């Protein structure tokens, strides 16, 4: 009856694992490396707009992040890809002419104090890239707001990339350009939407190509590697809030589309606020988190002393994530149901 000799192997060849024995194909490194992959086009755009400076700044911040993870992180944790994301994201929110040693330091600080100090992957309350960025903002306020012009020759260095620590601040021969937000804040000038969308403006490396960021984010959202509710919620709140302000006084407040596409909002909403570790786990929580960020962004931009508020808005809301999670726990199945099993009225 059998065409081949039947065989049942000795049991010592069999595994004994706990149920469930099937596993979805997603894994944490796969998610992380997909995020890295989706950042590649954005890095490409940065190189296109800012030339070789973009490459070296990104490389320096990533090297800082990876180096500290390798030195102090758990063994093999480089392979999970999360340190690479931190380094790249930090690089993307730095200006092209940023000194490399500072970028390196920022990456190292972000991983060291933003993540490893709390116990490594999954334990940190704040987005490590933003921790690094906040540190740089506090330590080197001038360097981080020196924006090179986009009109320079492609191959030219965009600033004092190669200054060394403690070297005197001799001004490099660089044409600087204001960012759209700076233009609006300090000169009352609104950049046209088209330039904002395609990225042809001054700004940090990854802050310029809004449409591209949206596309890359959509890819992640489609694969469920990113919770679309967070960027959607941020955009919605920023839009509605600034629309109201614009309607109240169109001369004082910028139009909503300008708010959406200028500065670090795109990068922040799509890549930083959605960091899984530092965002809420419930859907309702994500909406609340996003709304909080949106409102804070507009408040800081319009009334704060700085033109840009995305970073602080996200860090601020990160702090509330544990409370949001606790407050938005959904009703457990079978709890609070009336006799007869009718669902309770919400």
């Amino acid at each position, binding site marked *: 009856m059998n065409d081949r000799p039947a065989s049942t*192997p000795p049991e010592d060849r*069999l595994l004994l694992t*706990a*149920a469930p024995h099937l596993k979805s194909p997603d894994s944490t490194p796969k998610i992380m490396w997909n995020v890295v992959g989706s950042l590649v086009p954005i890095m490409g755009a940065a190189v296109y707009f800012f030339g070789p400076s973009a490459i070296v700044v990104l490389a320096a911040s990533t090297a800082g992040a990876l180096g500290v993870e390798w030195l102090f992180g758990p063994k093999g944790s480089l392979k999970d890809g999360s340190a690479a994301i931190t380094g790249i994201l930090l690089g993307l929110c730095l200006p092209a002419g940023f000194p490399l040693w500072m970028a390196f330091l920022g990456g190292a600080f972000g991983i060291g104090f933003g993540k490893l100090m709390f116990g490594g992957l999954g334990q940190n309350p704040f987005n490590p890239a933003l921790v690094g960025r906040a540190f740089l903002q506090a330590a080197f306020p001038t360097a981080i707001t020196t924006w090179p012009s986009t009109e320079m020759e492609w191959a030219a260095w965009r600033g004092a990339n190669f200054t060394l620590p403690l070297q005197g601040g001799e001004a490099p021969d660089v044409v600087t350009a204001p960012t759209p937000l700076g233009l609006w804040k300090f000169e009352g000038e609104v950049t046209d939407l088209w330039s904002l969308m395609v990225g042809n403006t001054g700004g940090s490396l990854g802050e310029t190509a809004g449409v591209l960021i949206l596309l890359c984010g959509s890819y992640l959202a489609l694969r469920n590697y990113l919770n679309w509710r967070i960027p959607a919620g941020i955009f919605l709140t920023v839009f509605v809030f600034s629309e109201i302000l614009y309607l109240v006084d169109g001369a004082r407040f910028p139009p909503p589309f300008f708010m959406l596409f200028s500065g670090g909002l795109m990068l922040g909403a799509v890549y930083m606020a959605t960091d899984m570790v530092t965002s809420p786990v419930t859907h309702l929580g994500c909406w609340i988190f996003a709304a909080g960020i949106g409102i804070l962004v507009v408040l800081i931009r319009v009334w704060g002393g700085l033109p840009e508020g995305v970073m602080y808005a996200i860090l601020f809301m990160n702090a509330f994530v544990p409370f949001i999670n606790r407050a938005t726990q*959904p009703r457990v199945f079978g709890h609070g149901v009336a006799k*007869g099993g009718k669902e309770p009225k919400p």
Partner: protein
Amino acid sequence: MWRKLTFSHGVHPPEHKELTNQVPIRRMPFPDEIVLPVRQHAGRPAKPIVKPGDWVERGDKVAEADGFVSVPIHSSAAGRVVEVGWWPHPDGTMAEAIMIQVEKYSPQIPRPRQIPRWEGLSPQEVVSWVQKGGVVGLGGAAFPTHVKLLPPKEFPIQLLLVNGAECEPYLTTDHRTMVEFPHRVWFGVRIMMKALQVQRAVIGVEKNKPDAIEILSKTRPPDLNAEVIGLTVKYPQGAEKMLIKAVTGREVPSGKLPMHVGVVVQNVGTISCIAEIFETGLPLIERVVTVTGPGVRRPSNLIVPVGTKIRDVLEFCGGLTEDVTEVITGGPMMGGAQPNLDAPVTKGITGIVALTRKEARIRQVYPCIKCGHCLDACPMFLNPSLMGSLAQTARYQEMADRAHLWDCMLCGACSYVCPSNIPLSQMFALAKYQLSRLRKKEQAA
């Protein structure tokens, strides 16, 4: 009102039912030896009433029920009792079992027996036949069926819900039963409706079995107030609470049973087994088992005598392939890995699934990245991420107080989606076990 026939959350593991869902059920030949553990059901184990040397015919009682929540066990083949001792149990432990040397060349004809005429029986008599037949839930939990048929007076039952969802991947046991024995299923429904004195019955079938839905609808006896409902394909659609939610929209309150919302759920296989009692008079001595998975050479649906060793069943299906890594009894989502293939097929075993490295392997565990995927998967709306972090530091009591551990039904949906490969449902099972042990100790003290 239009309503989607399902529950919220849940997961979509690959189904892999194509391996066996068109393979007709065959009868497996009698093995040389059968092993009948006295503990094949939830509740108290049965008490052996035979001793080594005794001769038993097929269908003879070999162990009797010990109390109300217990059922008798019958021999699935004619032969001589060789030993009453300890033997590996498919749940991974050792259990007291009756070993029977099956008589070679026996025609395996059972003793002539009385076939109950259900029309003339009272509901209580029907239920007592079910208990005498040793019937337990054949969907996997193996809870004695007659207990479910005798709900206390204060819970009037309005609906008999027949579970044909079969949401576990790979398994096609219930599917083939419905397709090949639709009349038997309806006959069983009729008897159960009588036993429960309910006016209405619903058979819920996942929509990935259109042939089963069609044939059941076609063969429905016109005088029966019953219908067949196609359900959304989603795991764990076949969990009692989820099935009730999908069909009736009612939620079984936490810590309560289906009868609290006026429903009794029975598995399709159980229903057809009860029908067989009233057709042939034979107790539960064999069951349909799906033998499948990439690690089996000839995936099949078999009628297996209860007590056949897993090894014999696998041999009959052509054996295992070279690259097999794990053999599971039950479905791959909730079933247990087998440490010992000499363990027998018990009443509660729905399938034997042999997996290869592609699916079953040791995976590296990463820290929880708070992605929230487990919350989106949990059909009970729990927070597996929080429970997991509490479990890591053995804060079991806190898991129960703060995170509703006791509402977890260990379906494994959370572990299935977790990208960090955290063994969530395994930790919850352990936590429940530890807590109940603690409770017992407290009661003893």
